[in-house]
């Protein structure tokens, strides 16, 4: 029950304090009672048992992904260097 799922905001329903989110193609309406941040279409949020818990910081996620790409590329370069010695 515990895994919180990243989802994209695709519609706002301010009158019901709800938003519609898309989780890799699956759409559903969830509560936004716990969100204090302003939410816009295109934002990413974490969903847990029918509630949006928090916004996901896009810049932070991109920074992490960029860092991982660099780590993986460095590893690839090192393994190429090693195999050329053998």
């Amino acid at each position: 029950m515990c895994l919180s799922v990243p989802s994209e905001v695709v519609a706002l329903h301010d009158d019901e304090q709800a938003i519609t989110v898309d989780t890799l193609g699956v759409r559903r309406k969830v509560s936004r009672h716990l969100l204090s941040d302003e939410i816009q279409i295109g934002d990413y949020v974490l969903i847990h048992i029918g509630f949006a818990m928090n916004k996901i910081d896009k810049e932070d996620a991109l920074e992490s992904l960029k860092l991982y790409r660099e780590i993986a590329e460095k590893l690839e370069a090192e393994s190429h260097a090693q195999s050329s010695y053998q």
Partner: protein
Amino acid sequence: MPNQAINEPDSSLKLKSLYEGFRDAGTIRALADRISSAAINLSEPLYIMEVCGGHTHTIMKYGLLGLIPDNVKFIHGPGCPVCVMPKERIDQAIALAKMDDVILLTLGDMIRVPGSKGSLAQARASGADVRPLYDPLDALAIARDNPDKTVVFFAIGFETSTPMTAVLLQQAEHAALPNLLFHINHVLVPPAIDAVMAEPATKVNAFIGPAHVSVISGAKIYRRAAEVHHTPVVVSGFEPVDVMESILRLVELKNHAESVVEVQYSRAVTEEGNLTAQALVDEYFEVRDSFRWRGLGPIPQSALKLKDKYAHRDAEIHFGGRLPVAEIDDHKACQCGDILRGLANPMDCKVFGRGCTPQTPLGSCMVSSEGACNAYYRYHGVQHVD
């Protein structure tokens, strides 16, 4: 620079990258290499407790155990709300469900977990009105549509799920729905960490903290663990790359003898957490003197209950005297308590995979899909057991 990253042609964030980027095999391999290099410098073995069953699941599902060096070990912790529910609380839920004119609502795997005489699912099969919910707010419509019934929400979960129960209670008050009551079983992570560390034989010397708890409560709830128990804590996301990066940070922190709290999952976790959610929890809940955890026994101030102001919503008060209170332990052969305390591994247990399986669980670690034994059963060499 963050802005430059966004402007790069292939670096715009798509929902898919939030999944695939954090499951990338090359990145996992690269982080495993870094962990191995850093772990050479460890002065003693690192025993990392992953508090949450979600992390256990990730570690087993993606085979991360096979990627880390021998001097970095995992101890599976008590952080699964379904696993830690003592049998007497499930017996209470079953007693409620069997009462005339009661509809019992609950979440997740709770319906399958055995009490002392069967599960909520079995109670339902024999005629009790038990309904699993995927969204707690669905309870409002059920209460509205059944004004002649008493609807009881059997509320479970750690800090992550408590605010959702608070919103449901708030909405029930606003809508003046008198027939929606709550049986509260919300538990807290920091006292469970204290209970684990109070065990003299524990080997745990580092923690991976569950990100979703800290999305609500903030990273600050682990300060005590770092300061009092001198253990580094990394608040981690649930994707395999998140977990590997967190292991790497713990190894590095241990090498520098730094007992601090760090946030790996900074894309959604802050130091202070979700203040709106915390204010809601404070409005409706207060700390219980003690709560008995399945496998771990009573832990002081480790769970919440409704405030007196909301006693009219409290099923434990409303049905007081009609609910069973006898404390019931797990089967004697079950080593779940030792496993949750980090003193044993699922594979050490004599009944693992034999008398105790996900279909016929004897102990709490096997009952939920997030339990340590359940994860081992599904992903780790069970073919060698029988």
